[in-house]
């Protein structure tokens, strides 16, 4: 720069300012067109105009926010997130920018990023319950359980009877290995009317994990009254009945469960146990083999199968199964509710 004469430098600046003023005017016009189209729900066209406006003046206030909204409404969430990121860069104090960026991240399943943005937004509007609910869900989905618990507690302080919040809090507590507290939350949710979908199943599952089989059966049956095809409820009902020594009922539920989902490992395993118990070795063998096929990494089926083979005098095959058990050396507690197949996806 020091090599350029001062006069030329001055002229250049004047020219730039003139061009810039015209560009700003054009950019404003393009942006206005984009906004009009957005209002008509023509988001794709609106996006074109917002982009044109950006090419003319990338510093126009609110332009990235509007572009992001158009992307968001046309469900192009990664592009929306990129636009909102620019909006945040342009105005790091903007509640809207943080909130919308957070929502976009959430939609892109970037839950940890979502939680960070939504937390910033909620600092600006602490009583925005919709925002806090999504923030809580983001914490939950990104395994930030202590923060999720705090958010859900806040939401319950505003609405103590919210069944969905009780259930979500229960799931977080379950995932945090606080099963008794989780049960309390599910029990609170069950007082709502109508009972939320999966609510009885969730409570039943928590009872099941605590070996409270009678109560578990009651809840699974309640779930099946409204959702007769609920495979998980059928399976765990069968398992609970088996542990309560009601084998005939257990078998009925397990077979119904398998009719709905032939790849249900637990149902195959339990059915194998029941059949082995009454010396129906051939069918028990088929069940155990099926359970092993579905998930060979679980030691329980290998162990049960090995025990059956051993009782049949097939020691070599039994030993082979026992060796597999030893290799697996499993240390697995029952999975948390959140991880069960078919459970909630935020």
């Amino acid at each position, binding site marked *: 720069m020091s090599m350029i004469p001062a006069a030329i430098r001055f002229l250049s600046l004047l020219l730039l300012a003139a061009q810039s003023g015209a560009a700003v005017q054009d950019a404003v016009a393009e942006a206005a067109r984009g906004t009009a189209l957005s209002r008509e729900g023509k988001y794709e066209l609106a996006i074109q105009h917002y982009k044109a406006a950006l090419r003319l003046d990338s510093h126009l206030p609110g332009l990235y926010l509007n572009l992001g909204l158009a992307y968001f409404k046309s469900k192009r969430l990664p592009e929306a997130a990129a636009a909102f990121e620019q909006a945040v860069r342009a105005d790091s104090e903007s509640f809207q920018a943080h909130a919308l960026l957070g929502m976009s991240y959430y939609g892109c399943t970037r839950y940890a990023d979502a939680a960070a943005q939504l937390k910033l937004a909620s600092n600006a509007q602490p009583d925005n319950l919709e925002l806090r609910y999504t923030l809580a869900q983001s914490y939950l989905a990104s395994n930030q359980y202590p923060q999720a618990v705090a958010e859900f507690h806040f939401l319950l302080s505003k609405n103590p009877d919210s069944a969905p919040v009780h259930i979500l809090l229960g799931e977080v507590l379950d995932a*945090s*290995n*606080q099963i008794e507290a989780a049960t309390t939350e599910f029990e609170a949710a069950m007082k709502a009317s109508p009972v939320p979908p999966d609510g009885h199943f969730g409570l039943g599952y928590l009872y099941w994990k*605590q*070996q*409270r089989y009678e109560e578990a059966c009651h809840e699974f049956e309640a779930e099946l009254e409204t959702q007769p095809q609920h495979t998980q409820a059928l399976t765990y009902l069968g398992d609970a009945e088996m*542990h309560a*020594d009601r084998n005939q009922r257990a078998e009925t539920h397990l077979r119904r469960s398998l009719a709905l989902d032939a790849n249900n490992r637990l149902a195959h395993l339990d059915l194998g146990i029941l059949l082995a118990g009454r010396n129906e070795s051939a069918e028990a063998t088929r069940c155990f083999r099926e359970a092993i096929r579905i998930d060979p990494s*679980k*030691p*329980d*089926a*290998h*162990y*049960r199968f*090995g*025990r059956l083979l*051993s*009782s049949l005098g097939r*020691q070599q095959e*039994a*030993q082979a199964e*026992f060796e597999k*058990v*030893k290799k697996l*050396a*499993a*240390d*697995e*507690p029952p999975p948390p509710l959140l991880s069960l197949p078919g459970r909630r996806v935020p």
Partner: protein
Amino acid sequence: MTVAAACIVVSGQNAPSPIHFSYRPIGFRLDSCETPRRHAPETMAGGVAVFDYNNDGYLDIFFTNGADILSLKKTAPKYSNRLFENDGKGNFTDVTGKAGLAGTGFDNGVAIGDYDNDGREDIFVGGIHGNHLYHNDGGTFTDVTAKAGLAAPDRQYGPLWSVGGAWVDVNNDGLLDLLVVNYLAWDPNTEPSCEAAPGKLDYCHPKFYKATPNQLFLNNGDGTFRDISAESGIRAHPGKGMGIGVADYDLDGLMDFFIANDKMNNSLFHNKGGAHFEEVAFDAGVALTEDGKFISGMGADFRDVDNDGLPDIVFAALDGEMFPLFRNLAKRGFADATRSSGIARLTLPMAGYSSTIADFDNDGWKDLFVTRGHVQALGLGSKVQIDQPNTVFRNLGGAKFQALTEEAGLSAQPPARHRGSAVADLNADGRLDVVATALSAPAELWLNDSPGGAHWLELKLDGTASNRDGIGARIKVTAGGHVQYNHVSFAAGYASSSAAPTHFGLGPEASASLIEIRWPSGIMQELKDVVSDRIIRVKEPHP
């Protein structure tokens, strides 16, 4: 059945607990040299024994104790093992120095047995990289480890970490042999560091250490022992042993071993005769819990809990794992009865160490006493309960149990990391008491003051053709039509030994109509119409 039914509390908010204990202090504090580094042995100390060291008829208490963790030497008096003499009323005096039992190393477990049949109980102390055999000279003890041939380190594994063992006559030659239970391979110089949270060390999971074999030493009858670990078949199955139960589970007249392993499959050593064993845990159904899980097997006991004449297995484990109960189904192996007995649900949140099977309410059904406490360290913000109270599980008639903690008076002391326990009637009132240890805490004497005034009977066996202690003798008692069984075995719980007369609760019956004893020698003996509420000495008849 009628005996149990008579004792069940049906209703009443203030009904006294059918089993109740009162706390009595005893001047011992377990010191395992806990350091921020969290060396594995620091959390595993705490074996205790009850036995009559001076043959005065009263049961005394011996505590093992830790040592400096790096030198494994008892560098200060606080690490001394301790022997307390009982005055017969439950008052105890420290006689360690006089008896010569202070010890030298980091001691972990204890097994009592009269290995030389001289009528005086001897002591085996298992420790970290060093075991000791103390011969009872008549109230004083001599360390005879080297002379007995028990001092040599393992040729392959080097020095081992023993959590105790069991005295048992494996070949029925009338001499007690020694099974030493070894935990895992530990070396302070190569031990891993395990963080429970950033910068906060906690005890490592057993998977970070190698398994080690148990050892079997055959009694030569001249004060020496021969290591038959390999030729007996024991050595071929290394484990991470924490508990041993001894019983003749298949009633073939030969004593078998169950060993609870930590996060490994358990071992069941079936005695084939001639001091040869086969490991049959998987086939018998006791290797793992019914769902094939590797749990933290802790202290075990192996006795008949359902009065069907077949010894069953109980051992403790950590929270979320439940305390397994394996019911003996004779030729059909064992069934995991943890769930059906109610123990699963009761113990799901518990962490336990030492489980012993004994009849605490004298109703004719054996109950379970479990010392509780976690293996992990204190103060790391863990969700698991580190300090826990002890719990007694009352047998409601063979197949179901009820947990009694606060009701049984066991919350009278703060929760702690309890470890070993021994069971005996320490104050001669006919009710079984418990002595328990706890890490970095005072030992606890729990005197049984259960209500009900049920009758009882204790048998102190005196073997002649069989070993002097009568270990392995099977006893069947019939009283009022109720039949129950037990056998003589001092090995019970975690790292501990209960060398007391064999106790039977008789409920309302003032006498036992028939007592049948099958001695390890094979000799059968019958006693008829035995009046209750006393200890009877039974000498083995000559063939």
